[in-house]
């Protein structure tokens, strides 16, 4: 299958050559020329899911129009093409995250399922009373609830690395928290609420010295900055395609080969077996051992051009662009005077995700009002209820940026926030 690498990318490449130009990038994303309530859509909900470039939409179309078949087991031409599309996408993922082996790249439904895979396959077979699981106070439910359930199941104990009032992890008692009883440390690389980028390498190193395994929830980092999984040295890394220009329904678990080899499978069924008898079964090799059943083949095929697109821009440039946007947004939002803004104030320490509350307007009301101005942001607990409690709020407003956002988008956000104030002030 010839993935149309060039078609969707050419414009952005030209842009990248001439410096990173979000206006040019915007043109590659059909939805961004849509209007909402009569105004040009300003999409600032990228931490929830990102929009898709023309090349990704076309790859989906092309897959179903020209190549669709089931993979692996087929000899006919379409099956061969579908398999090549899927395994080609796997290779691209392996390259994108730092040149790991394709055996170490497992396709799941999403980041959540990737983490559950580890909690079930590794966790349920390796944890017991007296063992410790270490998380942080800023985890997304996806990296929280599987471990809560696992702890309940196995009798293992949960401990949390706390956060300080500026939204950083407080590492002062790290040695005490990551005790020798710690069997796994699972933490987010970037908070989806605070935007904080955590010093995961350093924490992982300590955990490894204690003999613990480590899992990085990279759902918010890999889409937004250069991440080399080998440098992190994490044993597991989980993320979702839909948060990095790819389609929904496909996520990634990276795992170190030797550890994956030791693990029980998770989803049992076709394609993940070597041999099945009526009373026993043996497992296929990596990565297929963890991919039971027909995978999201179309999704994988369309994830490939998403990775091409990001690689074409360069993840360093993506990160630089987001730092520029956050700096600008922090400034402008602070100047409004009516907001409480969460997370680090130094743009270098955070991703392009900003949570805040208006002292007088509830986040849902703000979200509704902003929507009528064409500005899409998220309001709620952002799947981080314990963090909300820690922050002393029930919900926040969250604006999150990506490659196609501009300072003009932030101006639109600020104008809408001002209008909301006027409205709630006078209504």
């Amino acid at each position, binding site marked *: 299958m010839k993935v149309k690498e060039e078609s969707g990318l050419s414009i952005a490449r030209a842009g990248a050559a001439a410096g990173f130009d979000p206006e040019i990038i915007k043109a590659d994303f059909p939805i961004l020329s849509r209007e909402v309530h009569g105004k040009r859509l300003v999409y600032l909900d990228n931490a929830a899911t990102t929009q898709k470039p023309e090349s990704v939409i076309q790859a989906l179309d092309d897959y179903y129009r020209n190549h669709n078949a089931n993979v692996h087991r087929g000899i006919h031409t379409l099956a061969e093409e579908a398999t090549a599309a899927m395994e080609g996408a796997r290779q691209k993922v392996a390259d994108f995250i730092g040149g790991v082996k394709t055996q170490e790249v497992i396709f799941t439904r999403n980041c959540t399922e990737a983490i559950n895979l580890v909690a079930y396959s590794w966790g349920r077979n390796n944890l017991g009373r007296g063992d410790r699981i270490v998380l942080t106070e800023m985890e997304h439910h996806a990296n929280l609830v599987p471990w809560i359930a696992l702890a309940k199941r196995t009798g293992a104990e949960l401990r949390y690395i706390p956060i300080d009032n500026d939204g950083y992890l407080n590492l002062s008692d790290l040695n005490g928290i990551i005790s020798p009883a710690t069997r796994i440390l699972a933490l987010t690389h970037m908070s989806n609420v605070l935007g904080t980028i955590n010093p995961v390498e350093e924490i992982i190193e300590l955990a490894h010295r204690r003999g613990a395994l480590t899992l990085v929830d990279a759902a918010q980092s890999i889409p937004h900055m250069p991440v080399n999984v080998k440098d992190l040295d994490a044993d597991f890394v989980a993320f979702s395609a839909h948060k990095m220009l790819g389609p929904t329904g496909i996520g990634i678990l990276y795992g170190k080969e030797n550890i994956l080899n030791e693990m029980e499978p998770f989803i049992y069924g076709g394609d993940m077996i070597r041999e099945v008898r009526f009373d026993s079964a043996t497992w296929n090799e990596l990565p297929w051992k963890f991919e039971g059943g027909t995978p999201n083949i179309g999704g994988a095929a369309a994830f490939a051009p998403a990775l091409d697109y990001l690689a074409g821009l360069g993840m360093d440039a993506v990160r630089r662009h987001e730092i520029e946007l956050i700096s600008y947004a922090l400034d402008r939002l602070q100047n409004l005077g009516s907001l409480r803004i969460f997370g680090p104030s130094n743009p270098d320490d955070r991703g392009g995700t900003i949570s805040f509350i208006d002292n007088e307007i509830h986040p849902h009301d703000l979200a*509704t009002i902003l929507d009528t101005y064409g500005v899409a942001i998220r309001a709620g607990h952002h799947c981080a209820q314990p963090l909300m409690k820690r922050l002393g709020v029930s919900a926040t407003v969250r604006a999150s940026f990506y490659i196609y956002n501009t300072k003009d988008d932030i101006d639109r956000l600020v104008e809408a926030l001002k209008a909301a104030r006027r409205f709630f002030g006078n209504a």
Partner: protein
Amino acid sequence: MPEPLDELYRDIIMDHYRYPRGRKKLENADMRNEGQNPVCGDEIELSLKLDDGRVDEVSVECMGCAISVASGSMLVDAIKGKSLQEVRRIAAAVKAILKGEPLPEEVEMGDLEALAGVKNFPVRIKCALLSWTTLIDGIEALEEGVVANVTSTE
């Protein structure tokens, strides 16, 4: 200000939001129910005192957006003095208003009519419903002999 917003946040709604009625906690309530909307984090605590089968006192403590707070506050005014059967009828009428369905003639809605603007904002309908669902669930539990309860709406 965009027009549908004016429809949503009518003056009556904003007034109930700013000055919610019936926030005082009731001692010895005959019915108490907690409601929460797990999607958005809104929470409500609602209690009733009954007198001879009629609502004598109501307390609603709502932590949430303007719509859920206003709806809860209007609930306090709307059900006071009503029989449980009338309460149910009002709750059904509120649902009808929120869905844009015609109202049953006999029910007299008062301030509640102001909720009509919510129907144009489907995702906000649950905000307006939270207090009413919590109320009805609480009444149903009461009829089964339960005084304190928890309701979750999606």
